[in-house]
């Protein structure tokens, strides 16, 4: 499997993971990232996913996954069980993000967090010009039915890491196309032009 077989944001995360490491993914969906990492980087993989049908898809791929709530399941692991804890496009749906990142830093040496950027210019324009809560491709729900209860911008996350005493080792601001399979890095004014942010974080 090639790196380009993965969705663009996942391919960036995959490129950051050291071969042979121990990886926990919170909200691993159908297990595409873990499957790739297991095959190509021989990682020892663990996933947590709440939806039964997605759990089935993961196990069919031969990866180890637990059906359950990420906030609860992460607590059972002893300290430093993993090299990486990944939370890909899920943080914005977590009720207590600070607690979850704290747990990620407890069970793993490093964390990877990615989320849709609420500072993107289209989000800003919608609110500014129409006066209504933004609905975008990356955050496609209405205010009343959205699972994305913790929308944040890239700058918000940087400020958060400073306050929480978490160090950012790597970061990628990206712009993806419709189905998210392809994309490119954003270097100019990322908080305005990136649709997603990806961060590799760790303890100070």
């Amino acid at each position: 499997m090639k790196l380009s077989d993965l969705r663009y944001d996942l391919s960036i995360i995959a490129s950051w993971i050291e071969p042979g490491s121990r990886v926990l993914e919170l909200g691993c969906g159908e297990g595409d990232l873990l499957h790739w990492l297991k095959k190509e980087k021989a990682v020892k993989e663990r996933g947590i996913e709440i939806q039964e049908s997605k759990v089935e898809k993961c196990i069919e791929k031969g990866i180890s996954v637990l059906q359950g709530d990420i906030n609860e399941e992460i607590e059972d692991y002893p300290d430093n069980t993993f090299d990486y804890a990944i939370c890909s496009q899920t943080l914005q749906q977590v009720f207590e993000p600070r607690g979850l990142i704290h747990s990620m830093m407890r069970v793993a040496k490093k964390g990877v967090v990615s989320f849709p950027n609420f500072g993107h210019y289209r989000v800003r324009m919608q609110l500014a010009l129409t006066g209504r809560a933004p609905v975008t491709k990356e955050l496609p729900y209405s205010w009343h039915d959205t699972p994305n209860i913790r929308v944040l911008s890239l700058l918000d996350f940087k400020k958060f890491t400073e306050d929480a005493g978490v160090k950012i080792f790597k970061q990628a601001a990206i712009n993806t196309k419709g189905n998210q399979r392809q994309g490119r890095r954003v270097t100019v004014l990322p908080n305005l032009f990136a649709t997603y942010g990806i961060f590799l974080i760790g303890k100070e």
Partner: protein
Amino acid sequence: MSEYTDSSRPGRTVGLVEKKTFTFAGPPDRLRLESGAEIGPVTLAYETCGTLNPDKTNAVLVLHALSGDSHVAGYYDPKDAKPGWWDIMVGPGKGIDTDQYFVICSNIIGSCCGSTGPASVNPETGKEYGTRFPVVTIGDMVEAQKALLDHLGIDTLLSVIGGSVGGMQVLEWCARFPERVRSAVPLATTSRHSALAIAFNEVARQAIMADPNWNEGHYYSGKKPDMGLAIARMIGHITYLSDESMRLKFGRKLQNRSALSFEFGAEFQVESYLQYQGKKFIERFDANSFLYITKAADYFDLARQYGSGSLVKAFSRCRAKFLVVSYTSDWLYPTYQSREMVKAMKKNDLDVSFCEIDAQWGHDAFLLPNERLDHLMAGFLKGVSDEIE
């Protein structure tokens, strides 16, 4: 636990299979049981399907539940009305694919389907053991299965798989012989019975022992405690269903009548169903075996046995890769009991997958056709096989 449900699906089968037996612990040897008692010789009835590969790395041991037997799949005779009890799962291209794996299933000791149990003749007396048969545990059942594997020349099992009381044997295998088990699939099971589960078993046992024909367990030359055993089975069947499945299956529908009779016959469909299940059961099962196996299940306590009360400590012995599966409507061994196991496995950094399957059919769900379970099983086993290569 109600093997031989009426749910067989058409499809490919392993075809004809043979009921084999293996006898060990003959004089001068004896099998020493957990209670300290000794018995011998011990016979196990077993069945195999598929082909053992030259490296002997593709053996899967399937463990049956309370009332099951060694006939896991296929047919003894082309004219048989029904295949083995898990034919929907075990066969070519099925969840446990017999084109890939060598499947072994043996009848547990204490049972009555070809393996040594209370209905067997005690060679010392020339009469059936009856209740002189020593109390056996889940550990004793596994110890006997290990003797069978030694006999078959199989050192390491690719997987041990079983539901309910079969799942208890799976857990016991992982703790007792960790170096011989590569992976394990405990389905719809528990690491120890709740008071609720023990309570139902005790009522069932009391029903048998209250039958005047039971005669302290020595009934083999006279009338059998059929009524007691039938009631015990009826109680069991209630615990295998769920409120929802009973509502859907029976509701308050009447059997072969349109109005209440104001008599005590079986009027409601649910009554008729339970009576039918009871009646069917006495034709194939021994009442004493029911007493012994339910007792073994009640005694089973992985944490007490291997962890001085700590399930985390108990699992620290295990090495297997696990797939734990529970069912949403199983109130006999509810999901929280599976989650307790998973939690203890995680604390030991064991490789565990867990899935709670949404099913309305109660505890019995693990024996019913379910594509999700087929996929989970096939994917998990393939993953384990791939890791060997």
